[in-house]
């Protein structure tokens, strides 16, 4: 985890999208809808998904345990999950 920064929903969304772009460079993320299954829509395998979570932990300081994978499967779910758990919100 890096130095704690102040994230608004907009910045957070930017970080998430840029990480997703790194995993699926060929996908057009502007067509991704909030409730699409991220892994299915972008064809992200379990290895890449774990790398995605590792990167999020490093960038925003939220470590998502395995039991919560079900809550972060969509963009909307992931955003909600992260927003209430950002370091300064606790």
């Amino acid at each position, binding site marked *: 985890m890096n130095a704690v920064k102040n994230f608004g929903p907009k910045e957070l969304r930017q970080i998430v999208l840029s990480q997703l772009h790194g995993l699926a460079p060929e996908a057009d993320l502007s067509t991704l809808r909030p409730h699409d299954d991220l892994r299915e829509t972008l064809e992200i395998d379990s290895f890449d998904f774990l790398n995605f979570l590792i990167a999020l932990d490093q960038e925003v300081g939220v470590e998502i345990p*395995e039991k919560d994978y079900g809550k972060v499967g969509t963009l909307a779910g992931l955003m909600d999950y992260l927003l209430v758990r950002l370091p300064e919100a606790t």
Partner: protein
Amino acid sequence: MAEFRMPSLGADMQSGKLLEWKVAPGTLVKRGQVVAVVGTEKGDIEVEVFEEGLIQNFAVQEGAEVPVGAPLAWIDGGAAHPGQPEKNAPPPAVEKTEQRIRVSPLARKLAAELGVDLTQIQGSGPHGAIDKDDIERAARQTAPPLPAAEGTPGKADFQAGMRRAIALAMTRANRDIPHYYLECRIDMTRALSWLEAENLKRPIQNRLLPAVLLIKAVAKALVKVPQLNGYWTEDALQIAEGIHIGFAIALRQGGLVTPAIHHADLQGADELMANLRDLILRTRSGRLRSSELTDATITVTHLGDLGVEKVFGVIYPPQVALVGFGKISEEVWVEKGMLGVRPVLHATLAGDHRASDGRTGAEFLESLDQLLQAPEALFAA
């Protein structure tokens, strides 16, 4: 004086391009040392050497397209120990020609095009030299003919090359291997709770994936049922000593590679995860080692990751089995008359019926199931 030859990095490879020498003449090399980088349809491969010795001189320069089996360099094994150096000179020309395969340039080119292995041909020319007619004769004997490859592609049509390599191997598999298929459902409750507990103890960077459990379970099941671990060569099953699991890794741009995880049965959970991570990253960036492409004794494909329920795979020749894992999903499960919902994995086995029978395959799947029911023992020494 030993010849270091262009290795066959898969059943489908006909030639490779020598991209880079990692050593210079006069270098003392050790077994397993990377000595060159070769461009193939599976990416750029770091080629290892399998004997100790002094690199005498190169047979080809960087940039050369070299057929499988043709010499790349000469290694003096007698000079392996410094202190008693042999004369560090290139071997006399005569000695060279005695050891290398005598073949005309035209024949060599034709052999590469037709996929003929030069080491398997008795030449009919002077001093046993192989000529164009010998190649054509050998190519006709390989019946039915496989589609001829049009030389090795450059980077631009890498994908087309990869497609063609897969086409060749799979055509051969479907033509030569009488497959049988078995399937079983495995209750993953215990395995997943063990995994979750393990992962709670680790920082996120060291988390284990279910694939680690599955690979280890396959490896241990093969210890019990070794008949599925090996190769079908010369009309007989050769059971392999080591258990090297070829793990199918799909590439986003299309195609797949199945590099080997060496001695998977002997690895701990963290070691296996680290090796898997390293292997996936190097497969994607196109930096595998030759031994990883050639050593797999069985293949595991894990398509469940992308939502598929079960996989009935095609065996990668000359291997004799392929294990397929589907998605782990909640299913209705009946046990001791009780109806419940469990996380269930569909495991399949594709077996080569020349090498084994369904009974052997069934023993393997049963053993796999038992191992996954006792996950804590899976990694116990």
